[in-house]
């Protein structure tokens, strides 16, 4: 019987070999696919057991941190500043898979490096499930100032460091409490108006038109253009504010007094392809390259009357009216801050960046998010010329309410776009600018939604002034 016994044992060995082969299949061969299987909630629970890192403001104030839930041992998120930073910080509920903002975008850093390497030493104990802290450039003082001055009016304030693209301020009203992001709220409170709000930029867009005019070599700040009103643009008469006629004026003067007819003619003269080229360089027609989830971003571009975006350079775009920030052009406040920043930084536009660095629990910087050049929009010479033109706007033009009054030159541009039905009197006031104009450190864009006939210089410029003052005083 011994031969049979040994053969039988051989069968048992084969059966056990099958068990080892199958175990290998699951643990090694198919492991990655299984770990990523949507039915597998293991990865999620592992993440919930990680103490995700904090999100911090520039001054070290905590914007998001983890709190351990006693019953489950899971780490949940709490946001000490709530609505003040809710739009850029967002929220992350991994269980319900509801995530937004930096919480979503920087999750890979916040939850720390993968623990697969640790597992070799896992049996020896030691639990290093702590993620990295993410530092942002956001300035709490300016953020509070923005919230205070918007005073509940729907609108948005964005401030950038033009040299690095660092986002110093990003606040919009209405905001929401990201600790209770599921609570119902009115007026699209969770919309990050700074990156998703789409508004006609009005005359602030003349900075883009001026840049295209000068950098293309067709115009100089001293070029004389007839500023009479009205002028026929695209077959329809276009008039200046109060239908005022200016006669032959320089481009600088036209910007200072925000003369619509001049810029419409300039754009038509410069031509659609050149205008489109410069708009693209400024970042129009594309999602802004910022460190936020792409579903929280909107591209700034012209739309037809049915709300469909025009293909860039489409012959149906009314380039004369786009040149003055109308003609279906809709932009985000972030995009307009980028326009100011490009002029401020000698024509070199930096990618806007909320996060500065990721720091591990031991205090080592594991990643510095390096500032990146987005486009060289214009030559430094053009930039300095547009800079001077914009200084004139604040020194003696429509933007005088933005004057800092401390001898620090402020370059800016106001805008007041007509919105709503003709005769409704609704406006979208704007102000964009940067300071100190001779050594720019802060670029800013401010807009307020749907005011009853208020002007950019009147309501947006003072907010911009205060934000700039706060940021400069804060050592920016």
């Amino acid at each position, binding site marked *: *019987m*011994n*031969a*049979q*016994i*040994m053969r*039988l*044992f051989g*069968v*048992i*060995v084969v*059966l*056990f070999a*099958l*068990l*080892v082969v*199958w*175990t*290998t*299949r*699951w*643990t*090694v061969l*198919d*492991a990655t696919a*299984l*770990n990523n*299987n949507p*039915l*597998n*909630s*293991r990865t999620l*629970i*592992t993440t919930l057991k990680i103490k995700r890192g904090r999100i911090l403001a520039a001054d070290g104030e905590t914007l998001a941190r983890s709190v351990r839930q006693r019953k489950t041992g899971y780490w949940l998120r709490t946001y000490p500043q709530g609505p003040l930073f809710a739009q850029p910080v967002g929220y992350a509920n991994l269980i319900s898979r509801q995530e937004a903002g930096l919480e979503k975008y920087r999750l890979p850093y916040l939850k720390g490096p993968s623990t*697969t390497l640790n*597992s*070799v*030493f*896992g*049996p*020896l*104990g030691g639990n290093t499930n702590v993620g990295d802290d993410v530092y942002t450039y956001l300035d709490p003082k300016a953020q509070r100032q923005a919230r205070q001055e918007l005073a509940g009016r729907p609108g948005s304030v964005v401030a950038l460091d033009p040299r690095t693209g660092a986002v110093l301020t990003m606040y919009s009203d209405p905001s929401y409490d990201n600790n209770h992001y599921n609570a119902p709220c009115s007026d699209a409170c969770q919309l990050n108006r700074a990156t998703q709000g789409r508004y006609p930029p009005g005359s602030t867009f003349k900075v883009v038109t001026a840049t295209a005019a000068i950098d293309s070599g067709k115009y100089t700040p001293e070029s004389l253009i007839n500023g009479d009103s009205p002028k026929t643009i695209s077959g329809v008469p276009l008039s200046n504010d109060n239908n005022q006629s200016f006669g032959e004026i320089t481009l600088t003067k036209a910007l200072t007094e925000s003369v619509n007819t001049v810029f419409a003619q300039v754009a038509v003269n410069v031509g659609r392809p050149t205008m489109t080229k410069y708009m693209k360089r400024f970042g129009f027609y594309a999602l802004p390259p910022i460190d936020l989830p792409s579903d929280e971003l909107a591209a700034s571009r012209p739309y037809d009357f049915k709300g469909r975006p025009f293909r860039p350079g489409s012959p149906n775009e009314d380039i004369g009216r786009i040149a003055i920030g109308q003609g279906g052009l809709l932009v985000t406040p972030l995009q307009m801050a980028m326009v100011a920043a490009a002029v401020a930084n000698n024509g070199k536009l930096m990618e806007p960046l909320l996060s500065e660095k990721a720091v591990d629990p031991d205090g080592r910087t594991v990643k510095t998010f390096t500032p990146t050049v987005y486009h060289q929009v214009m030559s430094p010479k053009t930039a300095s010329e547009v800079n001077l033109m914009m200084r004139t706007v604040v020194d003696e033009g429509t933007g005088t309410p933005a004057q800092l009054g401390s001898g620090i030159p402020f370059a800016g541009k106001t805008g007041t776009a007509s919105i709503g039905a003709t005769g409704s009197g609704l406006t979208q006031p704007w102000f964009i600018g940067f300071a100190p104009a001779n050594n720019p450190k802060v670029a800013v864009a401010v807009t307020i939604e749907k005011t009853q006939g208020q002007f950019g210089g009147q309501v947006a410029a003072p907010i911009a002034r205060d934000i700039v003052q706060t940021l400069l005083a804060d050592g920016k």
Partner: protein
Amino acid sequence: MSARNRELFGLIPAALLVTAGFAGVFIQREQVLSNVSLTYGAIFLGLCVAAHILIRVTLPNADPYMFPLVALLASFGIVMVYRVSATDARQQAQWFVLGLILFAVTIIAFRDYRKLEQYRYVIVVVSLLLLVLPRLPGIGEQVNGAYLEIKVPGGLSFQPTEFSKIGLVIFLASYLRDTRQVMVLGARRVLGVTLPPLKHFGPVLIIWGLAMVALLLLSDIGSSLMFYGALLSMLYVATGRLSFVVIGLVAFGIGAWYLGTHIPHVNARFEDWQHPFNSHLYHAEGGSFQVANGIFAQAAGGLFGLGWGQSILQLIPFPQTDMIYAVITNELGLFGATAVLVAYLLFIYRGFKTATLARDSFSTLLAVGLSTVFGLQVFVIVGGVTRVIPLTGVTLPFISYGGASIVANFVLLALLLLVSDRSRRPTT
């Protein structure tokens, strides 16, 4: 070194493992190293040494490796169960003591185990009764659609099949000892296939029928595979006729196919086995959630595992019983799981070795049967968890939480040691 001293030294790894294992779990759970781990280790070692002394006195020639291997598996098991539930581990420890008592009783009462043969019909009837007990209303309990447990007063449940398997092996060993010669000699060739004489093959057919009935009644593929596999193995060893095995396998295959396609529960198990990641089956009540999460747990374990105490237990249903192999793979990885399988295989090897050394057919068949049924039980549950075969709720011997399992397997060990002692006894 004498056999018994080898056995004694063989207990050292088990004692170290239980101490280290408890220490590991404690560090993970409490962040402190409590001396309780040492206490557990000491008590466990004490029990093992007591059993060793019993073997030394009563079975001086028995195989020296079997008991240390069992101690290793049992100590590993108690750490794993403790890691899942401290309460269960305490109960498991009590069952362990009861198991050792029954181990001693078996050894002393059946010094001459051949007298078991006299009771073979009583044994087989009792075994079959135990097998159908869970199906009886009032005492039976349905777990996961299968009927494998009975309720015992005091809130405990009990898997009587653990004892049936031993009883059936004893019966078959005895029966085949008597009939193996006539089965071979009386065999006829029909259409080129060698068939055993119906008269002597009848009881075997009855067992096949019973396995099918068990499948039907208990709604359990794995248990029938275990019983029927042991039956075929013993038949093969007894007669040396591969054709008997082939016929048996075909018969089993047809029966399993028919039941698998016609019994809803068996069919559901089969579907869960084939498509565990089908989202519909996954979310169905009693669906493939268990199988799928067992595999997810193994995948998360990788080569080295997550470490003791790191498993996310709420994602592994029945972590201390059916799915304990998934917990082992999750926490100790492919290497740890393979080590456990190798320990089982070594134990089975010693069982087969005992069978080859035995001097009479009954002893040989008994050792083969017990080793095979033990090995098949490991295969059925680990195969179920690793998706080699459909999942069945049998225990992983000596490791899973379960009173009947621990006690019955200690009786199995006692019988193997009895056979081994007799076969290795010096002839003077």
